């Protein structure tokens, strides 16, 4: 009996709903103290949430901690050290928390008196709730993937390429996770998707890079038997 074991990839969209934690910091010591105990959900939001928000900040800084260090307590050296932290390099948000704390402790050791931010410019710790939406779109074959990806909103790219890493085993994005069911046939495509850095970019740029990478492999696939 023939059966089709291939599972379609159902595409979703998402939004991060920001919620105040009520915790705020006016200087680096307060930031460190809150960071020690703040829910990891908040750390996730301050690293990744910026990708889904319209940004008018200096794109030099990719996370909210670095932006605050640069613009509110005017510690450029700390801002630069915070800005180069790539959350993808850490196995868990707890590991990321430890790295943040190390960088901040190092900065505290270098400064005798912590600089205070203005009262209306404190670091506000935000946590989030992800809300998932149906797009009504699905992909049944890898050859359809690039075309469908082109039609997706930024929330979909975030959900499947970034947020998926905390849902799937081994921190794999949904595209690679879905391609796995085809065995080794799309291994090269998976490797090229793996090589795309999801953090130091914008979602629209990520989408373009993803589409181009998938197309490059698909065009390669069709050559021998076209």
């Amino acid at each position, binding site marked *: 009996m023939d059966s089709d074991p291939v599972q379609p990839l159902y595409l979703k*969209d998402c*939004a991060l709903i920001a919620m105040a934690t009520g915790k705020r910091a006016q200087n680096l010591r307060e930031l460190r103290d809150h960071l020690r105990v703040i829910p990891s959900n908040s750390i996730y939001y301050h690293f990744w949430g910026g990708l889904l928000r319209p940004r008018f900040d200096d794109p030099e800084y990719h996370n909210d901690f670095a932006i605050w260090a640069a613009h509110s307590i005017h510690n450029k050296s700390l801002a630069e050290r915070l800005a180069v932290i790539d959350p993808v390099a850490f196995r868990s948000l707890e590991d990321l928390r430890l790295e943040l704390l190390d960088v901040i402790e190092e900065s505290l050791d270098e400064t005798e008196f912590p600089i205070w931010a203005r009262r209306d410019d404190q670091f506000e710790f935000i946590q989030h709730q992800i*809300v998932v*939406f*149906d*797009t009504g779109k699905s992909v049944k074959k890898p050859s359809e993937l690039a075309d469908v990806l082109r039609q997706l*909103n930024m*929330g979909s790219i975030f959900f499947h390429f970034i947020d998926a890493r905390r849902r799937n085993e081994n921190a794999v994005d949904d595209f690679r996770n879905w391609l796995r069911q085809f065995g080794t046939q799309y291994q090269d495509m998976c490797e090229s998707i793996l090589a795309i850095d999801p953090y130091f970019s914008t979602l629209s740029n990520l989408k373009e890079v993803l589409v181009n990478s998938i197309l490059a492999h698909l065009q390669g696939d069709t050559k021998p038997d076209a």
Partner: protein
Amino acid sequence: MLEKYAEIAGHHVVEHLRQLAKPLAGLRLVHINSTKAGGGVAEILHKMIPLMRELGLDVQWEVISGEPRFYECTKGFHNAM
């Protein structure tokens, strides 16, 4: 009205609103404020009430009135918050 917003905000944003509103269909909601014109709340409600109704919610808007001392009190709440 939602379609007009979709042209500016994007159809996917309005589709999000429809999906969020679906489980709330039939819910009765009353907005109460102290003025039907002027002020930020009235400005918002003039648009929000028809939008919420278009999404399938049973929404009413009631205006509460009072003496000047009543408004001093509500303004006091507002400023304290």
